[in-house]
């Protein structure tokens, strides 16, 4: 009698798991990345056709596809007016690409920091990048540097330098004599340095006149106005190369979920990995923040949202989140320049307006899923 009960339950419990049931990780990465990429591509086509100036849809498509090296030869754009050409190719497309790049940077770095800090609350600005960039940018505005280095405006250059300097400072504060980084110290140093630099920014804002103040505030809200190809050309390689570099550490980053000590026991060179991730992330965020100012919530919400769909494996999550961040920021910016036509709303306001409620919804809905 008892025997039969035991047999029954053990048969029920012992569901034999077979290897075939598991999806190969490489095909999973490719599968999700391609899906995300196709969506991004379609949205680029749509976004570049929406705007104040009415350009026919088919012309937009042609002009956009004309930018792609191989397909270029098959597209005939000779009968499109030069005004439309300029609107699409010199005003909208750089802006579209810039927003995609910045979105990629922010949510890609969000994934890495959340993994590294073992905390889903981490965002790309956590180690004081934004305050460094703000201080330097507002300083540049106050000084009234109108000429830039080469063709990059002085504000962009200053913001990039400020972002790098502040993260370098925080990074070094959190390193002990042996070269090890304490994550908790990193976060706390980030908060301290951030507070210090923000005080500096506030002080500069008091000193500045009305126009300068407006410029500083507008910069800090984040926006893609005055997007130029040169910005895309400069920050594009930094972001793409930085994210590709980060991808190599995603496998090791997975093991950090069990704690740094366990990761070391599993044979991962944790200290080296931490250094590399923080350096690459700082570069990528500095590049993003320098051209657009501070755009909140993208780096926090997008990795969250996608973790629910693709799972927590950083090898899948990083490329998918990066593209996902590009999509989200592209949509947000398209809204920003269109909903209050002809006025433009800073994109940071849009991301916070949509991002914050959505984030709360996610927290309520999927308590255990991150």
């Amino acid at each position, binding site marked *: 009698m008892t025997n039969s009960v035991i047999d029954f339950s053990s048969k029920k419990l012992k569901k034999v798991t077979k290897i075939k049931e598991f999806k190969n990780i490489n095909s999973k990465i490719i599968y999700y990345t391609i899906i995300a990429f196709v969506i991004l591509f379609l949205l680029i086509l749509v976004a570049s056709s929406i705007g104040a100036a009415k350009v026919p849809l088919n012309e937009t498509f042609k002009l956009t596809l004309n930018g792609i090296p191989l397909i270029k030869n098959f597209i005939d754009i000779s009968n499109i007016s030069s005004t439309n050409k300029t609107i699409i190719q010199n005003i909208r497309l750089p802006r579209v690409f810039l927003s995609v790049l910045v979105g990629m940077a922010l949510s890609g770095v969000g994934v890495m920091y959340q993994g590294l800090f073992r905390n889903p609350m981490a965002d790309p600005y956590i180690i004081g990048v934004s305050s460094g960039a703000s201080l330097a940018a507002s300083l540049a505005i106050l000084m009234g540097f109108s000429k830039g280095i080469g063709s990059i405006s002085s504000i962009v250059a200053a913001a990039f330098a400020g972002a790098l300097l502040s993260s370098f400072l925080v990074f070094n504060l959190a390193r002990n004599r042996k070269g090890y980084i304490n994550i908790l110290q990193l976060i706390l140093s980030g908060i301290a340095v951030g507070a210090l630099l923000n005080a500096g920014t506030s002080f500069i804002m008091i000193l500045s006149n009305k126009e300068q103040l407006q410029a500083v505030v507008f910069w800090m809200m984040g926006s893609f106005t005055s997007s130029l190809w040169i910005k895309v050309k400069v920050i594009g390689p930094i972001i793409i190369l930085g994210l590709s570099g980060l991808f190599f550490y995603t496998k090791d980053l997975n*093991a950090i979920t069990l704690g740094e000590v366990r990761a*070391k*026991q599993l044979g991962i060179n944790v200290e080296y990995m931490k250094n590399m991730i923080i350096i690459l992330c700082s570069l990528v965020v500095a590049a993003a923040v320098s051209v657009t100012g501070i755009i909140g919530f993208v780096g926090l919400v997008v990795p969250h949202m996608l973790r629910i769909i693709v799972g927590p494996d950083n090898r899948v999550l990083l490329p998918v989140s990066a593209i996902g961040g590009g999509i989200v920021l592209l949509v947000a910016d398209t809204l920003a320049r269109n909903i209050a036509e002809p006025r433009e709303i800073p994109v940071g306001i849009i991301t916070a307006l949509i991002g914050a409620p959505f984030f709360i919804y996610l927290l309520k809905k999927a308590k255990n899923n991150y």
Partner: protein
Amino acid sequence: MTINTNPVIEVKNLYYSYNNQTNIINGINFKVNEGEFVGLLGPNGAGKTTLFNIISGILPFYKGSVSIFNKNLKKMNYKERANIIGVVPQESTSNFNFKNIDIVLMSRICKKPQFANEDQNDYKIALNAMKLTKTDHLAKKGYMEISGGEKQRVIIAQAIAQETKILLLDEPTSNLDINFQIEIMQMISKISKNSNITIVGIFHDMNIAAQYSDRIILISDGKIFAEGLPSEVLTPYNIKSVYNANVIVEKNPFTNKIFIIPYYNDHCLPLSPEKRKKIHVIAGGGSGSYLFNILVRDGHKLSTCILSSIDTDTRTALRLGIEMVKSDHHIALEEESIRKNEDLICKSDIVVVGRVLFGEINYSNLESVKKALKLKKEVYFIDGKNFKKRDFTGGKASQLYTELLKMGAKEIETEEEFVLFLRNKDISVTNNNKETINLNNNKIFLDAQAIIN
């Protein structure tokens, strides 16, 4: 112990401190041979986990040398080391809901080049490891959705999938129910023996350690306190000294291995080492059990006289690890036993006679007291005033008793008073007759009450 004497882990003069002031590891030397199962025991804060963290390379800034397979640990890189040493940590939490199979697969990272992902073979090894720890049915479930015991089994599977020659277990069964404790330990023991894997395990459960270890290393305050076979190391005296726990040690009749039973009367700290004495107790017929108990509790090292193998006191003495002379025959007749008993007296500082009923059979135990007095040992009689009531030799013992008193033996009223007397004894004035015990002292009286309760 294994015959193979090829040291796999060799630790020499190891020192480690977290703050450069106090050493957590304070000069440790030991070797572990191939295929051996070594239990590492010691109280909280003794330095066991620190020692593990040093051997597994988490704490690289130590003094001394650690060699793994005759190679300096400091010269190994992360990957190389992880291919030789696997660790099962006390507990592992995850902040992201990875699937359990993915958690187990993380231990395969060290087997691959940086940019290669896991393949079918890795899945096969991971699943087999999960089958060993009975977690394969959880493979697709999230790590954050399973219980603490299941997590521990998943992590054990992770360590097994790492396929290392050395496995360090840090309390591998702390979260498991009794069934899985045994199952997991048996499984680990089996793979250790089958694949010649060397195992060093930290255990708080001494019975598990005694059951599975070939050898036990007992650590206290960053030093090795004792090392050897489980039955040699896990004695009530050692356990009292290191853990301040009162235990009795018995033999498991089914496995012929020792097992340790803690007993819980009032908990008191052992005396400071200079106040601990070597005490020879004259007992018999159950008169000594209580005296043994309260003296052992204070950390004294005891021995006892010739006792018959069927005596209650014999059983108590064996359980408490007290050195004794066991006799299967008529005690009075055995010259050799008497000599052994006198040897024990020689080694002791103090001789105490319990409320023993003296007859012809155990008269030699009383005679041995005379020898003790000749050797200038201190001798105390518990409840000496009523000695005559316990004399069943027709006056012979009482006569000897009077003689012993003249030679310097002293009377003490009760067992508790003797214990308190030893506690308050000032070592500088020990050697004369002027010691008196103030029975009216309220504090001592209350202490005595506490011991009785």
